[in-house]
């Protein structure tokens, strides 16, 4: 296989994705083009995140347009949102982002023990975020705010729920990475899975403050 011709140190930095170029076919050493230094899987994921950001933009714009078209927002018969609790919850989610950052730093330094520690912290904080949010939703439904009670309720559940779904999905990926970490699958040079998981986690953490500010505070 031609990829053996690439020095191991370079291979590590490229990760799995970049080994996908073929050899010269005649047995001569593979000459990489400059472009092949980019990690394919991570690049693809970033593209995906870009289009997801546009889905969120669409939802946030819908929220803003619907709000602008209503004279009283929130409607008089609908409950107010739990601003303070969600504010604290926002802190939990931001902290999970910090934990994920520490996890990335650990594996970059080759400390897989501390990688596991920080990843578990991320999971715990993410689960706390979802738990508190679920609890608050229960209360809101109890106060008579549902999908169909008003456009206010509808767009709230769509936007916040869509984000929660993303956190949930990112958690599933995160759990896979945790399992692979405890099985000692990642090294300093081969940590593509961690990087991808982290990129997605930073995305779900990063969009939340925007949503919080627009939906709860504004």
């Amino acid at each position, binding site marked *: *296989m*031609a*990829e053996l011709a690439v020095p191991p140190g370079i291979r590590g930095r490229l990760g799995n*994705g*970049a*080994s*996908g*170029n*073929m*050899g*010269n*076919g*005649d047995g001569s050493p*593979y*000459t*990489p*083009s400059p*472009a*092949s230094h*980019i990690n*394919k899987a991570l*690049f*693809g994921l970033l*593209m*995906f995140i*870009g*289009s*997801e*950001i*546009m*889905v*969120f*933009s*669409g*939802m946030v*714009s*819908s929220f803003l*347009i*619907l709000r602008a*078209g*209503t004279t009283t927002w929130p*409607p008089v018969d609908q409950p107010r949102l739990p601003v303070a609790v969600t504010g604290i919850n926002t802190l939990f989610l931001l902290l999970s982002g910090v934990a994920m950052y520490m996890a990335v730093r650990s594996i970059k330094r080759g400390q897989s023990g501390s990688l596991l520690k920080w990843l578990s912290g991320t999971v715990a904080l993410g689960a706390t975020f979802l738990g508190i949010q679920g609890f608050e939703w229960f209360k809101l439904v109890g106060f008579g705010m549902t*999908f*169909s009670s*008003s*456009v*206010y309720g*509808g*767009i709230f559940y*769509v936007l916040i729920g*869509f984000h929660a779904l993303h956190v949930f999905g990112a958690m599933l990926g995160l759990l896979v990475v945790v399992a692979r970490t405890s099985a000692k699958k990642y090294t300093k040079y081969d940590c593509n899975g961690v990087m991808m998981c982290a990129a997605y986690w930073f995305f779900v953490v990063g969009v939340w403050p925007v949503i919080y500010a627009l939906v709860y505070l504004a």
Partner: protein
Amino acid sequence: MSEHGNGHAEPTSFLRKYVFSIDHKVIGKQYLFLSLFMALFGGLMAYYMRWQLAWPETAIPGAGWIPEPMAFGGIIPPEFYNALITLHGTIMVFFVGMPLLLGALGNYLVPLMIGADDMAFPRLNMMSFWTITTASLVLMASFFVEGGAASAGWTGYAPLSADPIHTGVGWGLNLWIMALALEFTSFLMGGINFLTTVVTMRVPGMTMFRLPLMVWMQITAAVLFMLSVGPLIAGAILLLLDRTVGTGFFIPERGGDPLLWQHLFWFFGHPEVYVVLLPGLGAIMEILPVFTRRPIFGYKTIVYSTIVAGALSFLVWAHHMFVSGIDPQIVMPFSITTILISVPFAVIIFAFMASLWGGSIRFTTPMLFAIGTIVTFIIGGVTGIFNGSAPVDIFIHDTYFVVAHFHFTLFPDVFLGGFAALYFWFPKMFGKMMNETLGKVHFWWTTITFNMVFIPMFLIGAGGHMRRIYNPLQYDFLKPMQDINIFITWSAVALLVGQLVFIFNFFWSMYRGKKAEDNPWEATTLEWAAAPTPPPHGNFETVPTVYHGPYEYSCPGQETDWQPQHVEKGSVAA
């Protein structure tokens, strides 16, 4: 090497080789067949609509097989007519244009043109094809559910689409939304794949400005699609919730805003036009230099113009809403951006004309179709300026002028451009030459009958003939135009029947055509000059190294008049 770089060996079983293949060339052909198959349906629907418009509420020849309550002995009721206009648009844009120009041409050509052995994510590529196939099945199934297929137009305007009480269509429209959602997912996967492939898998020497323009068009289209489809996905989720769980995002009585749907749809809709347009133009850009034997004029200018047009396309969407009751203050800015966007396209068209100027043109079938595309597209582009200008648009909006306009952009792009591409790359794809005589007959027949269909539509549109009406004879002021309607219908029948020439040529050549050489057109780009015909699994026998730009024709001091991208100057072309 027993396996090539992406780590997959050449498959041997029938299923793995032809059905669940991960080879980009096979997947490209699968997209091709899917799009041609769907085009038959889209064309058939056009025929039913045209017949109804010419001879309203008479039995349509060839519609007798349609079961009740869609049609009654070949006579179609208004509900089914509305379903036809909806599905014709949906199919032609999303299930013919995109799979043909992006799915088939993009998949087949992008890896070959950049010298790669396959796409960056071959399995994702396979999944994207099977996702759009599922989407097609869902769409076709929607005809057979209670209440019939979606009938709110291909734009699915709310509140018509948001509440079943308006159209009587229940699950048909839900399935329509789901089919579109699957289609979007498919092309998101495809877009990610194309971009990653071009960014990471170019062979040594293949710099961004040595890419064939087709590759530039494909990746620009991919970026436009990925950045524009998000808001419509959001809109589709909201619309589906309106229809299923009783929210009212687009329903005024429940506090919603029907204009919101239009914003979300057209924010996607206008870039989407370019998603379909650019790869078609890309095919033209590949064909022109080959058959004029000279470099394309203004390579970088074309690339930059495309990027400018792509960026502007995100700022024009409200030109579809001039009569929708938007704030008049935002009309003028959108009118201005819309007229501005014709500038980069005019630049591209002038580059085409300059490329033709003084070339020693070889009038082959692909070249004829390429010229035909340019000429018809100019009419489409120029009439777009009428629509973009708000005061004119207020008069011609929702008339046949608009129908004629967008058919004059999309038909040349998808069909004339698509045919140009198929006649051009068929030898590479299937290893056989297509019949030139039949090809030329097909070209003249198609372009002439196309113009006979759509030029009269400009006239009746300017005369105030509304689009999306079931029976023009219900309106006294339209009655004098009925003869033109009948003429259009006969022309449309001729246009559709003429496609049999292509279908025959396509399949006959596939089995009986003259065997194609590796580089029958004497082209310079890698898929012709460096890859065998048809390319084997893994595409190239040795990895090509690129030394030149893509269009080095008629270079002085050369033995041949073309300089393949992968052959160093001075050395003799293989």
